[in-house]
């Protein structure tokens, strides 16, 4: 196990494309780091560079305090699990797991013991003599993890390991990976484009876009305090509502003005007035998560602003019913209690919990408060 630090790492391809533009990430020994972002954001490239499969154009990567820039993959003490599992097709599960150990000239008895231990841990003992072609996706996934575990490396690298599995299996394997991490206290770097995997698995999340880390922090911090419009929209499902609104002064309060076809309400903001003062009269993007607009029964505090809204569509999910209304000509999703939700065409009183609402500059997309 070892800490990982990535200092000002850039990647430029021969044709001049900048894929990564100065990445800085550091995690402690035993932490679970998630690299998350839309496709093409450079997260897989970064993982390949940590693995040593891609060259580093500039900057440094250190594993356990040791600079590894020039080391070949086999000398970095890492193991990797791939999206396609990348099991060697001609070898049995046993051979797949022991291949890396054999190459490192591990004694036979030790290899056998390791294979046995790993197979028992992942409950794949009965599959040891099968070939990859004779197994299901979930089983292959386990074997791929077993191959990584057998090596007992300083860092585990996961490259979208669950995206080829069906939805149910994906949730199961997600829990297993988390359990494995809790048990082994291993350092893990995990690439995904799925924000739910990112939130549920990570100790730290690096949200990436266009080769830049948009925000690096704990899952809850990123959820509650997104650094910019992109992060706010990317993390969370259903995603945060972005309502274009004007900042207005109303008495001693500063708030945002939201209207539907019946009329307007000013939602007073409890945020730092000094930061808001300069925006009075200007257009901002008012970001509020679906669970922060709800029915009176679910709202846990009194004295919050209330607005009667015309319901366009409802989507029952079971535990909640998502109610869609239109505010400032924008579709807004609200999470309400199933028994409290009204029906499309009806009007419903919605409570706005603005304490965790955020404002963004519509031009720079940066966070205001």
């Amino acid at each position, binding site marked *: 196990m070892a800490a990982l630090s990535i200092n000002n790492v850039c990647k430029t391809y021969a044709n001049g494309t900048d894929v990564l533009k100065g990445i800085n990430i550091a995690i402690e020994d035993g932490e679970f780091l998630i690299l998350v972002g839309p496709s093409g954001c450079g997260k897989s490239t970064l993982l390949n560079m940590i693995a040593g499969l891609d060259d580093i154009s500039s900057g440094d990567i250190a594993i356990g305090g040791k600079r590894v820039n020039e080391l070949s*993959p*086999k000398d970095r003490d*890492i193991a*990797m699990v791939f999206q*396609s599992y*990348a099991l060697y*097709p001609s070898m049995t599960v046993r051979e797949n797991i022991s*291949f890396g150990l054999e190459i490192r000239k591990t004694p036979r008895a030790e290899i056998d013991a390791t294979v046995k231990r790993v197979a028992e841990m992942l409950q794949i003992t009965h599959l040891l003599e099968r070939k990859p072609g004779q197994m299901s996706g979930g089983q292959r996934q386990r074997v791929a993890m077993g191959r990584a575990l057998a090596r007992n490396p300083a860092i585990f690298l996961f490259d979208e390991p669950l995206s080829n599995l069906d939805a149910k299996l994906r949730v199961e394997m997600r829990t297993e990976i988390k359990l494995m991490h809790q048990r082994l206290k291993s350092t893990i770097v995990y690439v995904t484009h799925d924000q739910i995997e990112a939130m549920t698995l990570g100790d730290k999340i690096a949200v990436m876009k266009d080769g830049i880390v948009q925000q690096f922090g704990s899952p809850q911090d990123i959820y509650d305090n997104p650094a910019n419009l992109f992060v706010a929209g990317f993390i969370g499902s259903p995603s945060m509502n972005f309502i274009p609104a004007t900042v207005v002064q109303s008495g001693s309060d500063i708030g945002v003005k939201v209207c539907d076809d019946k009329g307007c309400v000013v939602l007073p903001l409890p945020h730092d007035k000094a930061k808001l003062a300069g925006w009075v009269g200007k257009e901002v993007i008012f970001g509020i998560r679906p669970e922060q607009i709800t029915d009176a029964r679910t709202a846990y505090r009194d004295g919050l602003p209330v607005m009667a809204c015309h319901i366009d569509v409802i989507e029952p999910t079971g535990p909640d019913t998502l109610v869609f209304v239109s505010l400032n000509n924008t579709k807004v999703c609200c999470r309400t209690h199933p028994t409290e939700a009204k029906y499309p065409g009806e009007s419903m009183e919605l409570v706005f919990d603005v304490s965790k609402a955020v404002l963004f500059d519509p031009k720079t997309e940066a966070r205001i408060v």
Partner: protein
Amino acid sequence: MFKNLTVGRALVYAALLLMAIYYLLPLYVMLTTSFKSLDDIREGNMLALPQAWQGGAWAKAWAEACTGVECNGMQGFFWNSIKMTLPAVAISTLLGAVNGYVVSMWRFRGSDALFTMLLVGCFIPFQVVLLPMAQLLGLLGLANTTAGLVLVHVVYGTAFTTLFFRNFYITVPDELVKAARIDGAGFWTIFFRILLPISGPIFVVCIIWQFTQIWNDFLFGVVFASGESQPITVALNNLVNTSTGVKEYNVDMAAAIIAALPTLFVYMVAGRYFVRGLTAGAVKG
């Protein structure tokens, strides 16, 4: 089996049958003629079965027929062809496998350009390389030898074999190579332990293709080999064109079949893998 026989179906079968007969007829004529006596050939119908089956023509074609001045039959040339074809097929196939592995899995600056240049090699007509190749063989001291012919066929065939293997390996996910590199395997270990074991289908394609090409080649054989070292295709030509004595059609036919037997044999043994190999990669394994 005729329950579902519609008119359309029947027409299709009829057309197929006609085609099959059309293609099999020459083989039938060759086989029957080779077992006929000369009198039988002269008097009888070309399509008729032999009046008396006799294998004398085969023995003569193998051991006694005249190919120019020599009259030792096809046997020596048959072995010449074997000695030329086996190493040429083996070397060009292995070279192609390594080339294909490099251009698909170990891309380097200019590897695409290199592959394109190799591809162009597939389109160079035989005739164009005759003179420079003759010069090269002379320089190497390999003129008129089987080794020289092997070299010619390896050089000419590597372009094709590289193309075959490259197109096969390009369908293999490169994550496989990445995984092996992280496991600590080097260039050759990955090739021998990971890729070769799954290359069976493409080896079959390559071997059939190369075997047929090299065995059937006439031009290189007739230009770069002479006398003792000639391959069987050249010998067959000489045998059939020998103008002394009576024209022995039965011997000609037997000799032609002898010359064609090895390629027929390869197709029969490996033919079903051929189609499978050509379409390999289309389906995820």
